[in-house]
């Protein structure tokens, strides 16, 4: 018994880690398993039979792939918009001293702190008062707005830790302002910018609350899932979910392999 406890205390960190990982991944496992289900009736909540039907026909549900494509488009544009604007804001906040810099710096965090429903409702009020047509553009504007603060935070951290002498060294080595930015500043800030962009994409893609308020008659993928949950949950939703998860895993693994190979090459 004592030996068991000694073994347990030695492996405690590993066991705790594995349990946490299982806790994190369990929902994904359920989603994946049920994407191979052949449910009786409209709801995919009880395991019946193994089937590849949904995987063979992922767009078999009316309007689902349309909403998916819309969500991907919005997420892509929101990512580009928020990343470009956020990167510029981050550089301005770190590099320049201007009036109200402190105020801007804290106001940028407001969208992160404010309850999403409140923000969604106020945005709707704003759009209606401006007489804007609710739809793709209002969704995009709203998404860029709330993604901005995350991009700024990620990029700012990176730019702050950057040695200003690197840019001076580039200038000293005959790189003009543009060359310095493209060859030195941007590549060094890239990890921060990439992190911000990924965060923006993920946040935009699965946002429901703000989108639901400001979409008008447009239906994004999260809204479609929410809507269909009232009437029945097609297996294809699980297929899309699993596919997204796989894409993410493949991207992460690919990134790890590339960086590992690069290190090995230079070692």
């Amino acid at each position, binding site marked *: 018994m004592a030996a068991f406890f000694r073994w347990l205390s030695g492996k405690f960190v590993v066991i705790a880690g594995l349990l946490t990982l299982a806790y994190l991944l369990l929902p994904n496992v359920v989603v994946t398993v049920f994407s191979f289900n052949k449910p009786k009736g409209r709801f995919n909540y009880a395991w019946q039979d193994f089937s590849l039907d949904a995987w063979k026909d992922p767009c078999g549900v009316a309007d689902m792939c349309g909403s998916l494509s819309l969500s991907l488009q919005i997420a892509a544009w929101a990512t580009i918009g928020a990343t470009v604007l956020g990167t510029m804001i981050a550089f301005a906040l770190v590099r320049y001293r201007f009036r109200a810099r402190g105020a801007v710096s804290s106001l940028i965090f407001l969208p992160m702190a404010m309850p999403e429903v409140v923000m969604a409702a106020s945005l709707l009020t704003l759009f209606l008062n401006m007489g804007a047509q609710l739809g793709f553009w209002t969704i995009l504007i709203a998404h860029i707005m709330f993604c901005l603060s995350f991009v700024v935070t990620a990029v700012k951290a990176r730019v702050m830790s950057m040695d200003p002498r690197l840019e001076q*060294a580039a200038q000293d080595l*005959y790189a003009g302002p543009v060359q310095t930015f493209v060859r030195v500043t941007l590549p060094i800030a890239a990890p921060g910018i990439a992190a911000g962009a990924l965060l923006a994409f993920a946040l935009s893609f699965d946002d429901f609350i703000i989108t639901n308020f400001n979409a008008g008659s447009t239906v994004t993928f999260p809204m479609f899932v929410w809507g269909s949950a009232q009437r029945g949950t097609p297996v294809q939703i699980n297929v899309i979910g699993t596919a997204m998860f796989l894409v993410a895993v493949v991207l992460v693994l690919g990134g790890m392999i590339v960086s590992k190979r690069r290190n090995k090459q*230079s070692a």
Partner: protein
Amino acid sequence: MSPPRAPEGAPPFLPSTSLDPTMTSAQEHGGDVRLTGISKTYGSFTAVRPLDLTVPQGSFFALLGASGCGKTTTLRMIAGLEEPSSGTVHLGEQDVTALPPYKRPVNTVFQSYALFPHLDIFENVAFGLRRRGIKSVKGQVGEMLDLVQLGEQARKKPHQLSGGQQQRVAVARALINHPKVLLLDEPLGALDLKLRRQMQLELKRIQTEVGITFIHVTHDQEEAMTMADQVAVMNAGRVEQLGAPADLYENPRTTFVANFLGTSNFIAAEIAGRSGDDLTLKAGDGKLTLPAERCTAPTTTGGKVILGVRPEKISLTHADDAGQIPEGRNRITGRIADSSFIGVSTQYVVHSPVCDAFEVYAQNIERDTRLVPGVDVVLHWNPAHTFGLDAAQDIEAGVEKVEEDASA
């Protein structure tokens, strides 16, 4: 194109601050760095007071001073990274004052190196060539990496190298551009002592090999003296004294220089008279001799001077043997307060009526074992090693900060 050096055979105590005139042909001046009335102020703070400085082409020049004395600011103004508040910078005949750093034929080795972390060693070194549109960089980069003995490391990233290797990459990255001037901003500050010594020799070797003007900023007086042909000692935004290392050491013109480069003993004295080329000084009850040409203070009789002598120039003799000391040497009496054996030499602190802590370094050859704390001694030295300074200055100027704090 040999860099102008202090004539090595010459007696070190000769007061010669200018360079050998035979070396100054017009051609050799074609690549001089010339600073004229250059200054830098930040708001109300003056970092560099208007100064004129000429660095001869091909020389290894050191800007030496404590932190905050304006040496790095001066260097950055030459590089173009700092805009002077007044004055001009000339490289040879070209006025580069208004040129941005990327248009100046000058390269810098930064403090902590500033290697590009996202590029490997090869690309770091090739950076300057590529920015100038040179396509085939492979041969040149290879040669340069061989010069700094890093040919094997070309594909590593900077963080995979040791401090000394990174430092050499920084030098290679700057030198490959064949700048007119290489600026070094405390390049050895981050290295440990042993490596620093090694790199000092290495840098000196490279400089001799490529013949480019090196301007080296440092706060380490030993580093400056080891490497440089010419040293400008800076203090509070101005150049305190300029000269060859041996010249600065033997003929300091201010107490700051005397204290900042090595250690000096000072005696407050009064000029009693003059005999030939020598001044006779009165200090306490004793008389001391000072060659008139080694006195930077006014030499009128009755004037006050600070008399200085380096600790290693002084001989210690037990008071019982005082009769054996040859005539014509400066002598003062005292009592040993402290002695510490440090291998090559023994360092004594002697209390004397004219100076309460006289430092004496004695080589450990034929040591007199009677010389222990509490013993009365006579200190004596060749008058030619004495220097005289203006009495109207702080004797403590340039003493290392730690000691200042301790005495405060």
